[in-house]
């Protein structure tokens, strides 16, 4: 595969896509797990399917549609669940299916042969184009900047939102910003693992890192590292076995988490 890597543009793109997505899912994954927003992230991911469908229907780039729907869905879920009258999981569940349904509707309305949606649903890292890569790179830089620039504020907000508000942090704005960052992350990951499998790549690297270190900063670094390992190993598997990349990456992530979890459990069992 190494020689093929120098030869083929699509493999270079795939490699770059894998590395970009491990950076965003490393950072945002740790935050999502600490803030218990895993299901919300799933809701945002599935909402974006509506945007993919709309892109096909109106003839613009589907990933742009996914981006618009993901950000719109994130803000809407945030807005509705901010009012304490509704449980956020109800809103998340509704958006989850509503987005998918809209996608199906839009695709059905698209004239001519129905487009192949599997690469959006399950990801295909080997078909990432230059354009996709450009969008992914922009989003990664934005996410990285948003977290790095306000790192201390994020940490205070994640640990104790109420206290952060008392010290004058605008936690409501930060909340919305976080939702938008999650939406951006989801869009980056869609080309790699697909809408349906996003959750595994978002959570597994951060969860493995969480088992191994107790420092917030180190957790992010480990998480990026594991994300990169899962993506690249998954890419290699996908290339050699000719299986969908999303499935390979997700299976690797989940199995790795279970192995580390089991090993940690045995270690702690021995200590106590």
């Amino acid at each position, binding site marked *: 595969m190494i020689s093929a890597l120098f030869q083929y543009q699509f493999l270079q793109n795939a490699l770059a896509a894998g590395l970009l997505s491990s950076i965003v899912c490393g950072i945002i994954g740790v935050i999502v797990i*600490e803030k218990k927003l895993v299901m919300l992230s799933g809701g945002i991911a599935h909402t974006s399917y509506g945007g993919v469908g709309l892109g096909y229907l109106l003839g613009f780039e589907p990933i742009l549609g996914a981006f618009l729907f993901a950000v719109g869905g994130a803000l809407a879920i945030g807005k509705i669940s901010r009012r304490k*009258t509704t449980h956020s999981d109800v809103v998340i569940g509704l958006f989850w299916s509503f987005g998918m349904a809209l996608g199906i509707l839009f695709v059905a309305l698209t004239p001519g042969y129905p487009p192949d949606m599997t690469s959006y649903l399950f990801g295909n890292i080997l078909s990432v184009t230059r354009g996709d890569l450009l969008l992914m790179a922009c989003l990664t830089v934005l996410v990285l900047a948003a977290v790095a*620039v*306000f*790192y*201390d*504020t994020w*940490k*205070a907000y*994640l*640990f*104790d939102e*109420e*206290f*952060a*508000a*008392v*010290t*004058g*942090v605008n936690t409501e704005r930060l909340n919305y910003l976080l939702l938008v960052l999650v939406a951006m992350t989801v869009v980056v990951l869609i080309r790699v693992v697909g809408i349906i499998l996003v959750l595994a790549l978002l959570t597994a690297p951060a969860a493995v890192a*969480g088992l191994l*270190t*107790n*420092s*917030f900063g180190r*957790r992010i670094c480990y998480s990026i590292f594991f994300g990169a390992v899962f993506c690249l190993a998954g890419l290699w598997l996908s290339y050699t076995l000719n299986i969908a990349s999303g499935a390979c990456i997700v299976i690797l992530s989940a199995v790795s988490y279970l192995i580390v979890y089991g090993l940690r459990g045995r270690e702690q069992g021995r200590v106590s």
Partner: protein
Amino acid sequence: MTAEPGQKVVEISHVTVRYGAFTALHDVSLDVTQGEYLGIIGPNGGGKTTLLRSILGLVPISGGSISICGKAPGKTGMLVGYVPQFANIDRSFPVTVREVVLTGRLTRSRLPFHRYSGADRAAADAALQEVGIGELASRQISGLSGGEFQRMLVARALAENPKILLLDEPTASVDAKSRRQIYDLLGELNRKMTILLVTHDMMAVSSRVHRLACLNGGLVYHGEPELDRNTVDALYGCPVDLIAHGVPHRVLKTHGEDR
């Protein structure tokens, strides 16, 4: 901003707080003077925490006004230190004790690329010394006992050198020894700052605080920390055994300390 003893630092007048159709606080008026140690007691749902949160600007008030040294709630900057109920905080969060206390210094600067300064670190370590857990500064918070965790939260509130300290049930989930240590600490802190303490703990109420406010929707009682049977009945709606220490009624009646 340096308030003289006896000067009003918190003025609460005719405050009403509603959550939707539910009225949590009704027409509460209360002044707190500089150097005072006020205990706020009352049954669950009586509005104790709501009162504290409205002073902090975390809950919008539906009527009346609150002023803290002439400033509106939420606009007080470094004047007010806050110690929340720690049941609401994730104790497995990956962060060290010092890092938590440093977040109390965040008010000084929230500019992009903010980094805590050497002065911030020194203030955080001094606050940790003050509450007696200076040696735990580099420890992960998941390794703290309940009492240590609570004292860390007090240190975080002290990191800004506030004039007023608000505490919400600081002894709710700590053992008896830590509880006594926390009250000793608050007594010590009261020499230099005003303290508002929300608590269920009658022992604290009796032996430490200067004044008592009893909330049950409205303000049932405000004054010397000696409750009679009628007030307590009005407060809790039914006769309550006031005490823990053996002799009924004793805790609230016979403390001989001079103040």
